[in-house]
């Protein structure tokens, strides 16, 4: 079967064609499980779950020698894990997260379905959060989702019940109802506030959000921050410092659109801010290098801050598959469980 006929369920362009977040999350998880040859869920539990055929690279400690003796075939024993991990996923639902330049397609044979749908940063973040929560809940970990803009807009409780995943998905789907905030007072005179975007937006205020989030976390948790982090570096640093101080483990997943990373515009256009910054008439080619310089400086600073606190930092491109991010999450989760 040609490779092009097989849908890559982790590809954002595929996921964009799928509407509900829960379906997206399941597809992500299943796709990830199918694609993995070496399981990150190594034998850390005593409850047997299933056998899996050995593949090179697997830990030979988990080979089932009895089966080998009977069938002369190598199988690994896999166990149902026992976890006591609390995972809190902070999802940025601000206006800037609504930006997306990626269009989704699903190739099924010769038929293409859903062409033309956009895949925003929030879509990417929400799908990733849902998938993480799905995996966590399957492992009996407690999971929670917090949606924020300039403040926490919605949050679920920490739970590992089977129906909690539905609550999480509903919360992620409710982000579109967040109201727009007032424009910042220091907007440039050239930035006209008279052209508000057509969509409801919320400003990003990580400092306030971190204050509220930290107040809600009573136990050591694995905090996953999924955001474009378009805020002051001081606020980011302060928030991560608070989490570090409370001994939380943090994974920073900075999500950016490929257009934001490359700034490929050529024609002079009127750029309308999605967080009520107003509009600007700009010649993008003249500003590209300066913009990219400013963006890269910001990204580098964010990564340095994350590394300084020994937090995991991953820059996610919404055009790229979600697998690496999830794998990173799995490895981090395993490490966290190992510490406990």
């Amino acid at each position, binding site marked *: 079967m040609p490779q092009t006929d097989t849908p890559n369920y982790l590809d954002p362009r595929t996921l964009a064609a799928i509407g509900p977040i829960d379906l997206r999350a399941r597809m992500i998880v299943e796709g990830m499980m199918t694609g993995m040859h070496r399981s990150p869920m190594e034998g850390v539990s005593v409850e047997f779950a299933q056998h899996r055929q050995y593949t090179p690279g697997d830990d030979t400690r988990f080979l089932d020698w009895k089966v080998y003796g009977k069938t002369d075939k190598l199988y690994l024993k896999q166990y149902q894990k026992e976890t006591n991990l609390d995972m809190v996923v902070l999802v940025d639902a601000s206006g800037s997260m*609504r930006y997306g330049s990626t269009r989704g397609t699903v190739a099924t044979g010769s038929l293409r379905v859903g062409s033309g749908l956009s895949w925003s940063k929030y879509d990417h973040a929400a799908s990733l959060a849902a998938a993480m929560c799905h995996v966590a809940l399957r492992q009996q970990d407690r999971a929670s989702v917090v949606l924020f803009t300039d403040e926490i807009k919605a949050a679920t409780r920490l739970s590992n019940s089977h129906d909690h995943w539905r609550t999480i998905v509903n919360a992620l789907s409710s982000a579109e109802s967040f109201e727009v905030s007032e424009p910042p007072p220091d907007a440039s005179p050239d930035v006209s506030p008279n052209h508000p975007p057509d969509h409801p937006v919320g400003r990003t205020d990580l400092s306030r959000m971190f204050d509220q989030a930290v107040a809600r976390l009573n136990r050591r948790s694995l905090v996953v921050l999924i955001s474009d982090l378009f805020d002051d570096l001081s606020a980011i640093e302060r928030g991560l410092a608070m989490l570090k101080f409370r001994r939380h483990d943090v994974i920073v997943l900075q999500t950016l659109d490929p257009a934001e990373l490359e700034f490929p515009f050529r024609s002079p256009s009127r750029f309308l801010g999605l967080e009520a910054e107003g509009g600007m008439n700009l010649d993008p*080619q*003249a500003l590209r290098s300066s*913009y990219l310089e400013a963006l890269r400086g910001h990204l580098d600073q964010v990564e340095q801050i994350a590394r300084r606190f020994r937090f995991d930092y991953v820059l996610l491109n919404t055009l790229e598959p979600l697998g690496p991010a999830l794998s990173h999450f799995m490895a981090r989760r395993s490490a966290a469980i190992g510490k406990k």
Partner: protein
Amino acid sequence: MQTLIAQVLAPFVAPALALAGVALVTVPVAIHLLSRWRRKPEPWGAMRFLIQAYRKQKRRMRFEQWLLLLLRCLIVLMLGLALARPMLVGAIGRWLGGLDHQGRVVNIVIDDAMSTRASDGPGVTRFDGLIKKASAVVDSLEAGDRATIWRAGRPAGAVVAGPTADRGVLHAALKGMQPGYSRPDLPAALELISQGADDRQGISDRSVTVLLGDFTRSARYVNQGSDAGSLAGGLSGDLIVSRPLPGHDNIQVLSVKPRRRVVWVDGLTGGQIASEVRVARYSDALGEASASLAVALIDSQGRSLASLRRGVRFLAGQRVAVVGVDLPVDAVLSSMDTQGGEVLTIRAQLESTKGGLICDDQAYASVELRRRLRVAVVDEPGGVFVEDGAGLTAGQWVALALQPRGVGRGGAVEVVSVTTAELNDLSRLKSLDAVILMRPDRLYIPVWEGLAGFAQAGGLVWVFTPANDGSAPWVSPMLEAFDPGWQIGLEPVGVEDLIEDGDGLAGAATVPWGLSSEPLSVEPLERLAADWQALIRPVLIYRRLPLKVLGADAWVSLGHAAQGSEGAGESGGSRMGTLLAHHSVGRGSLMLLSTAVDTRWTNLPTKPLFVPLVHETLRGVLGLRDRPGMVHAVAGDKPALGEAWVGLSGLDRLGVSGDLVEVEQEDLVKQMEWTVGAEGVQLVEPVAVPGVYQSGSDAGPLRLIVDADPKAGDTRQIDEEAFAHWLDGLGDWRWLDDENPGSSLRRGGEVADIGWALLWVLLALVLLETVVARYFSHANAGPGRSLTGRLWRAGLRLRSGEKSAESGRGRAV
């Protein structure tokens, strides 16, 4: 306002394009403004960084925008200005127009006509001044310039073959130039320059023509506007002309002319050569004046055989004086061949004239002295006796008139008696000068044809009407052989006949005819003019052939008889008929006397007019005929020497010694080149130096006389306004700075077309705009936002039909 606009647009060849360029400057501005108003909205999340970049680049972007807008406006403006072809004067214009780097072809035209020989100070001629100016022009040539030198004296020609940048060659050529003796022919020189410019088509050299001359009234081409007009399209480039010099007085020998070119001299008494010298003077103030004239007779060895001095007096207002001079030939007779003749030279020279030109103070003429004029009187054996003619026949009567008794050995005319039968042998015509036919009615047609050939070769055939009462059938073969165009009746008419002839060939006559008393105007008979009225008075014509000749061929016409009333025959002579008719046949002549040598027809043979009429007619007709071996020309002519010169072995300039002229040794011998064609000898080069040139050929005395061109001696000041008008016909021109001739060649006043320079600037602006736009846009791949880049992208879109890469990108959800 309109005046101001007109002044601003004056330097442009196409002002409308310049205006269009200015108007189109608004297009980039309009595009700039429209692009600010109508921009595609682009929702954007990372606005914080965009604002940050914008604040950082704000001033630079504005500078870039204004710079690009300025460049684009300049591009449009420059395109319009370049197409409008502005013409600029001055150093900047020359630099932009590339004139500083473009060589020129400088044509230096020097008028070396005779008038430039005039003195311009002690030991300095006007020609020396022209050479000095030309040297200054050569010295002022700039790098890349090439020059050539032309002479404008007739015949005009190149002094230096082809333009050269070698100043040494040019100076050497100037040093070797000498003024000529001909008149100026500036149109011919300009025509040669124009042809040279045509030959250099494709060479981008610009042309500058410098005319140097004294420009006196000898420049007669000024009054011939067509010459200048014909060159208007061909003479391109700048034209610089030296100012006409002031005029000065000049007196010249206009011509010297013997009354007859061939003079028969009596062996005993000798004779005189009657000559006429015309002296002309050129002065703005024509008061009374006098001059001294020396006329000399010079033999072929250059020896002066006789000389006379005559005073010349000009009355107030008189421009031309005519002086008659009779040169004695006694000194020649002793050395002359008893049978042949000798060609002599008459030279007339003004003495001690002050100022003016010297070279035109003399003129030459040739005259041939001969002892024998051989005339054959053709009659029937025995002839027809003239009634009351003392027993003489008509032929004898005419012979007697040619050789009057008592003159001794017969004088210069030798009469040969020939019968009509003997004339059938045409070889008898050789060595004869004239044939008098007393019985034309006895000649056959071949004889008439032979006589026609004799006349073609230069002989004279004189037909006397025979005294026959019947018709004259001989008239028809005569008219057929010679085709004179005369109207001759075949039946004689007389006083006893009352004839009404509708053609008017003969009028009703009841009394004898006389001869017309109209003043005699025939040049060969001019010696009779003074006594003509007295000589014709007793002449009566009783009978004659009706002969009517029109024009100059009617030498002696009939009139009413003089008896009864004085001057009765003055009117209507030509209508009543012609007594003596003449017609040129080739180099010879046919003559007809319409009455017979018979007292029944006329009393002319018995009257005093008969002898001088016969002699003067013979000598006049034969003496005025151009001798094939004698050619007269003026300096600058290229005369056709004719068949008689075919045996030419060389031409030597006759050196003249004596008390009148100092011999110029270097001019004693002048060898010339010639070619021989179907029409005889043709000189390759025109004769430049006046003088007497003779050939050493055995074919006979061959003599070429060259006078200074009298038209070149008009040294009066030219009408400067008329001259300027003539120059206007050549195109744009300006006066030469006579004080500093070299400065006129400097390029200060040149108008340069900087259209091409602006096109180069336009190209540079387009390239600059492209580079600047790409640099400002920091485009790493594909065409940038420059005009050329946009055009490139537009072309790509048209070809591929693809939509904008940005369309649909960045949509908020």
